[in-house]
């Protein structure tokens, strides 16, 4: 008995040691393989680059999803002629990371999903002014006053609706306050684009009226979701009649599962309605970047016709320069969507919006 116990214990220990040794070896081997394949993330091939003499690749922190912009950034690498390394995460986390890294950052370019994150970095002095001639094709409303960031594409706020429940979609956000839509409107209260909508509402109608609108909206028992994707899912499955989203989520979903699998439809509110706000994605060059030239070249590429056509066709967004039209999607022209100006990067305005949402209890 004792003999057996002793032997089995020994064996167990030996087995443990062997497992640990094997695991350790595996780690070393795999880590070695892993580090070998890292580096150029944008494309499989590294463009014949002059990066070596300039010290390091052009590092892009991208808050835009890899499935959306990965192919574009591979083109960018080829076009700029510098090796490109991309790190993907959400825009807000990357902004926080850049704020923590400060001057020590290896990032050269920040490619953001929304203007708020760019505004925060500009305010912290982390972005450098872009040359006027690089951004002159973009309307003043879609770039920072000091050119520290520039929009690269635009998206419209729209209503997604379930045609089985809604025969004629409303022509104003005010319709969402009616009893007919009680408990039937889906939205994403923590999403940056919803915050931008509330800011637009405040600018359009003043703080008093905006607050009243939000209170009535909250009282109409809307369904809150964590993301635009989930809002669209809710409308598509009939759980909600109407959803507040950005237009391209619908196009993404159609691309993902096929048009016949998506029952939800899109409705553009008329220009001038705060519900028809235009949001942007954009980019800014990090101050003190060792690759500033390449980073500016990257911004020029993103504002060039090739990239703009990519946004129009592949991500179903609005091009930010004139003269480029989508060949694939049914998009209302940008000029018809928005009727007023919102300074998208202004944080003090965003702060007021957040305080108001907190007071109304929409979080």
């Amino acid at each position, binding site marked *: *008995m*004792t003999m057996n116990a*002793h032997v089995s214990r020994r064996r167990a220990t030996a087995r443990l040691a062997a497992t640990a040794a094997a*695991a350790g070896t595996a780690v070393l081997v795999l880590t070695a393989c892993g580090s070998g394949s890292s580096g150029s993330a944008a494309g499989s091939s590294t463009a014949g680059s002059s990066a070596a003499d300039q010290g390091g690749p052009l590092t892009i922190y991208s808050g835009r999803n890899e*499935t959306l912009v990965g192919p574009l950034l591979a083109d960018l690498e080829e076009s700029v002629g510098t090796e490109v390394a991309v790190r993907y995460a959400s825009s807000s*986390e990357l902004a926080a990371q850049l704020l923590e890294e400060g001057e020590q950052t290896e990032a050269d370019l920040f490619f953001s999903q929304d203007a708020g994150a760019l505004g925060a970095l500009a305010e912290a002095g982390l972005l450098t002014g872009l040359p006027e001639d690089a951004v002159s094709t973009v309307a003043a409303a879609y770039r920072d006053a000091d050119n520290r960031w520039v929009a690269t594409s635009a998206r419209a706020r729209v209503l997604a609706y379930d045609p089985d429940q809604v025969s004629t979609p409303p022509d104003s956000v005010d319709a969402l306050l009616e009893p007919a839509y009680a408990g039937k409107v889906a939205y994403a209260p923590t999403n940056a684009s919803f915050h931008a909508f509330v800011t637009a509402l405040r600018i359009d109608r003043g703080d008093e009226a905006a607050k009243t609108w939000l209170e009535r909206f909250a009282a109409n028992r809307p369904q809150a979701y964590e993301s635009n*994707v989930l809002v669209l899912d809710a409308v598509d499955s009939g759980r909600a009649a109407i959803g507040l989203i950005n237009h391209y989520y619908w196009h993404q979903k159609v691309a*993902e*599962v096929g048009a016949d699998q998506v029952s939800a439809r899109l409705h553009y509110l008329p220009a001038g309605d705060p519900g028809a706000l235009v949001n942007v994605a954009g980019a800014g060059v990090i101050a003190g970047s060792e690759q500033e030239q390449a980073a500016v070249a990257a911004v020029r590429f993103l504002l060039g016709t090739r990239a703009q056509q990519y946004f129009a066709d592949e991500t179903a967004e609005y091009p930010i320069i004139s003269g480029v039209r989508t060949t694939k999607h049914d998009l209302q022209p940008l000029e018809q969507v928005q009727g007023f100006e919102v300074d998208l990067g202004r944080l003090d305005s965003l702060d007021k919006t957040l305080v108001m949402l907190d007071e109304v209890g929409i979080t």
Partner: protein
Amino acid sequence: MRSRQRRGGGERASPTAPTAWLALATLAAAVALLPIAYLFVRALERGPGVVLDVVWRERTVALLLRSLALGGAVTAVCLVLGIGLAYLTIRTDLPGRRAWTVIAVLPLAVPSYVASYVWVSFAPGLPSFAGAVLVLSACSYPYVFLPVAAALRRADSSTQDVARSLGDGPWRAFARVTLRQVRHAAGAGGLLVMLYVLSDFGAVAIWRFDAFTRVIHASYRSSFDRTPAAVLGLLLVLLTIAITLAETRTRGRGEPARVGSGAAAPAAPVPLGAWRVPACLAAAGVAVVSLGVPAAGLLYWLARGSSAGTDVDVLAAAVATTLSVAVAGGIVTLALALPVGWLAARHHGRAAVRFIEHATYAGHALPGVVVALSLVFLGVRYAQPLYQRTPMLVLAYVVLFLPLAVGAVRASVAQSSVRLEEVARSLGRPPRRVMREVTLPLAAPGVAAGALLVVLAAMKELPATLLLHPTGMDTLATRLWTFTDAGAHAAAAPYAAGLVLLAAVPALLLGGALPAARGARAPARAGRAAVTEQEAMAP
């Protein structure tokens, strides 16, 4: 022979803690405290006024209560499920006990964000609190089940028989004897569940339950203001310290190790009788909620959608990366947890040791993004060459998951009686050999289990991995995030399935280790046998 010191009144005799182990344990505590140093810097940078503003906000108090309510509810459910299933599978004649043992551990392989996503699509009408409790309980009850099942296996079931023979009914015997036997194990598991719930972001975000982590994330996301997030983080640390201290109280006194002479009687399973069917249904119900529904959701998405053309090379690379960084995290975490856990088990009377042990838990309830940002802050300033390289990522796993390993080491060392070490020493073994030949072999299964828990947690980790991974290197979790963030659920499904299957390996090892212990009998006994035999063979 070395002279022994007696410390602290009734405490068991033990040699002085070796300086090398104390130094290593101190290092481990220092590593674990890194995020807290960062939080102090950030919280105080705009003056104490801002700190007070955030603390005294009405919303902060509400947050505290809501987070505690969520943590308390999930911990309570996990204690009931964990202890209940452990008792059913170890002590009763439940049909298919071994299979149930393994099934009860498997939910550890399901990330809370995957389970939440599936559940929120499956039952969207569920209130946010109920949904979060459901998913978090389903994902984390194995943290209670594992230590309790191990303790039940080890504990002498004859005491329960004695209680029965003295006239206690089966329920009373269970409450008076069995529950006491598993008290330590259940407390340690419950602590891990509580802290895990406080730190979890995926579930509370998807269920939209306003807990600390969600508000911390919202603070980064909406206002890009790091001060309120840091203040809330520090509050979370204080809460953690209070909870850990409370848990320590419940440990109480008494030796958890078996040292009695004689063979442990093979437990005669308690007959369930008429309860057989309800017990089976209960176990099956837990399995359906924790495994069946997430699995069905994944299969649904795998079968659907046009974007599912998965690049097998990318998937394979992500599997290899996930495995390597998680295993590296497990090994390094274990190395730092060993001295802490050993000291905590053998020298828990010393204030310094108690401080070190609590320090390793202090940051465990912090959300991953806070730990990640603290390592960004420190790494970029003081360890630039390692920044966004694999070692820094591994360090993040150490900081995040150290308590998982410390708890396992402490429990397994505590369960092997110190008297066995005394015997070895009295027979002339120097301390180092005692450690190598008695202590470590006795604790080995528990220690290995601790490392496996860390590997499991590291595989599923997302926020810190996103910010700290080497550029161009993806894990299954980061790939999964890439696709779900873009709404490409069908494309995400293979990575989710890959992650669950990969994480099932350490989970199965953990579950499989339990039946193995049955054959080898209680570790303390087997270890004692080993010592006595060695001594007997020595001239």
